């Protein structure tokens, strides 16, 4: 019975890289750049990270079942233009319903009609982006003041984004690690057929995952729109792929079944620190993008070194 040492992190995908990378980055930046700890910079990093974290949590849910959702960025943009063009009382519900519909479409395509998730969500990414530009072709509009307050007010000295993050984390952590739904996602992601033989329905949870991911996009969209206090039809563009990068850095396996909320936090922080840190040191953003690509490849390879033999 003692032969098996209990795996510290089980199916979380957390390893030395996922934990060490953000820690090392943090250390380097705090030693190397005096501006890093300034209040303005921390606030800046925080607002960038908040939206990415919320989206990445949605992406995590989809990745656990072996899927991917690159349309989530377009959902952010759609949410933004809806919020900036409808009256305050209906804007948020309409945005959430639209997001749920996008997720429903993705889920139906993937889980029922068997379209590859990359193609399905690529198609809806293009469609939803076009739809957002139809509603509002350039940034502008007025955002309900309540949303601005929700995204910008500091409470007890802590920025609003902090509370958005904590709530999102708490909800997703309980969902994944404490509910039967969450356990079944891990099971489906590892081997859908075996899960089905164990009497677990496969279709409905898959569909739900895509809807939850789109909803995460909508919530990130609400936060970002409140934050910049205007609508922007291309606001979400980088988030689709950045969220995938963030979860991959956090040890989530895109083949399904392995990942954790903590990993997503670490991956998101890593990605946020890369762009912010490079910015502070004065490195060209293009160079920092190139470096991010290399880092992603390196980190993922090292996490899977048993599989690739290094």
């Amino acid at each position, binding site marked *: 019975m003692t032969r*098996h040492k209990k*795996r510290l992190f089980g199916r979380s995908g957390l390893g030395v890289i996922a934990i060490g990378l953000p820690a090392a980055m943090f250390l380097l930046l705090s030693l190397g750049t005096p501006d890093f700890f300034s209040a303005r910079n921390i606030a800046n990093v925080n607002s960038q990270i908040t939206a990415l974290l919320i989206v990445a949590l949605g992406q995590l849910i989809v990745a656990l079942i072996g899927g991917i959702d690159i349309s989530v960025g377009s959902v952010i943009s759609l949410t933004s233009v809806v919020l900036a063009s409808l009256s305050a009382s209906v804007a948020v519900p309409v945005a959430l319903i639209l997001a749920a519909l996008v997720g429903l479409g993705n889920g139906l395509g993937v889980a029922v009609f068997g379209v590859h998730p990359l193609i399905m969500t690529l198609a809806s990414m293009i469609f939803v982006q076009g739809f957002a530009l139809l509603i509002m072709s350039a940034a502008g509009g007025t955002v309900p003041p309540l949303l601005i307050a929700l995204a910008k007010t500091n409470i007890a000295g802590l920025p609003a984004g902090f509370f958005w993050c904590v709530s999102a984390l708490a909800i997703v952590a309980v969902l994944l690690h404490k509910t039967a739904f969450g356990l079944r996602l891990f099971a489906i992601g*590892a*081997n859908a057929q075996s899960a089905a033989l*164990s009497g677990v329905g496969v279709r409905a949870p898959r569909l739900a995952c895509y809807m939850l991911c789109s909803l995460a996009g909508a919530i990130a969209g609400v936060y970002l729109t409140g934050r910049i206090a205007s609508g922007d039809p291309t606001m979400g563009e980088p988030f689709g792929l950045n969220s995938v990068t963030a979860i991959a850095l956090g040890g989530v396996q895109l083949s399904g079944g392995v990942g954790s909320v903590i990993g997503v936090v670490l991956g998101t922080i890593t990605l946020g620190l890369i762009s912010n840190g490079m910015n502070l040191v004065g490195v060209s953003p293009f160079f920092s993008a190139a470096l991010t690509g290399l880092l992603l490849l390196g980190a993922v390879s090292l996490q899977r070194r048993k599989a690739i033999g290094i």
Partner: protein
Amino acid sequence: MTAFAPNDPAADAACVIAFRDITKRFGAITALSGVSFAGYRGTVHAITGENGAGKSTLMKLLAGVFTPESGEILLGGKAVRFGGALGARAAGIATVFQELTLLPNLTVAENLFLGREPRRFGLIDGRAMRERAQAVLDRVGIALDADVICGDLVIAEQHLVEIAKGAVADADIVIYDEPTAALDGPGVEKLARLIAQQKQDGKLIFYISHRLDEIFRLCDTTTILKDGKHVTTRPTRELTRDDLVSLMVGRELGHLFPRRNPRPRRQDPALSVSDFTAERGRPPVSFAVLRGEIVGLAGLEGHGQREILRAVAGLIAADGGRAQKYDASGKVTPLSPAVVATARAGLGLIPEDRKLEGLYQPLSIAQNIALGMLRRAPMASRARIDQDRIRALMGEMNIRARDASQIVASLSGGNQQKVMIGRWLASGVDVLLVEEPTRGVDVGAKAEIYRLLREFADHGGAVLITSSELTEHIGLCDRILVVHDGALVAELAGEDADEETIMRHALMGRPAAAAVS
């Protein structure tokens, strides 16, 4: 006897399940036809028969994995129809599948309770789940921690956990599908104890197996299936081993098979295998296939004949020993464990699963065959395809198609198999390794495929086959090597062999083999 074949078993209170006239087809193949029998509370009921007799199909109907074309399943006297595994589960039927269904990223406890997690306030009650899982493991006598991730367990331990699934399920009927295939001695003992306990609790246990020892030791009742038909359901104590064997076999050979040649005069081998271990833990085997000869590796599923053939083909890396190929002049080429290398050395593999491993379904007949002509061509060379040769081959093999450009996916199973053979004929290999030569092939095409293989041998080629159909070995092969638990236990001349003898060796292994040779 009456207790086992009453007129209306469903009216009997002890009858838990009754099959009535069950028929199940897969495409053109009838897996089960008109099967009727009943199972009773508090009994262990063996389902046995040859490979492909329909044992697993029948149990998958009961487990809700398949639905029957016609006939009905009566559960406690009422006809039921399950919408999938979930429905069968809910009706109190649990299955321990032959293949591992454990999820490697879940703990033992999570695997055991997946789909029926204990809840508290809507959330999973992790502690209750662990405690209940640990209790089940202890009860079955499995020394494992319920908190261990299943991916960290060795295969034998995983199979034990799989069996524990049968103990967790709060089911009236528990199906064990070839449960001992991967268990060691102590594992089998644990299973035997668990089954005895479940029997005492008044459950009905279906035990699918072709291991005679276990059937006679564990089972009260035995149902024998043959070719998808019900042969008999009897108390096991009324049966002897010999009865079992002779009830499982017995089939007409028909006129499907081409005439054998007299034994080849030249005794030069085309392929020889010595001290060859296809898989770790199996005994080493040695044999040779001569030019002009068709040799069959016969045995029950899971006894390693398939692995031997695949290791020779280079599809799986052998654990030890040597395989050598001899060309017509006697030059020796050692075979390395790589398919490309064995194909270049002159071995052609015709895999069991044509769709997945053999043919390019969306490509044409010509393209599929032409691939063989390019066997030794360097990658950067121009592909020179001899269209006349392809047309000639199609004619010789009697491939029924519009023309050479027809897509392979649109051909019947028999014609697809001919294309597969055609590829190797075009490539000029002189040894064919054929898995299940006529799986999914209609009767007419069967005869033609046998003829093609025989002609290949007559022209100096050598053929090694595996087949789950005994008649195929008897009708087609010059020599039959019987495999039991990975060892060659008997060598029979094809013309003298009969199903019963092969089956006896395949089921009982060594002792009987010694008596024959």
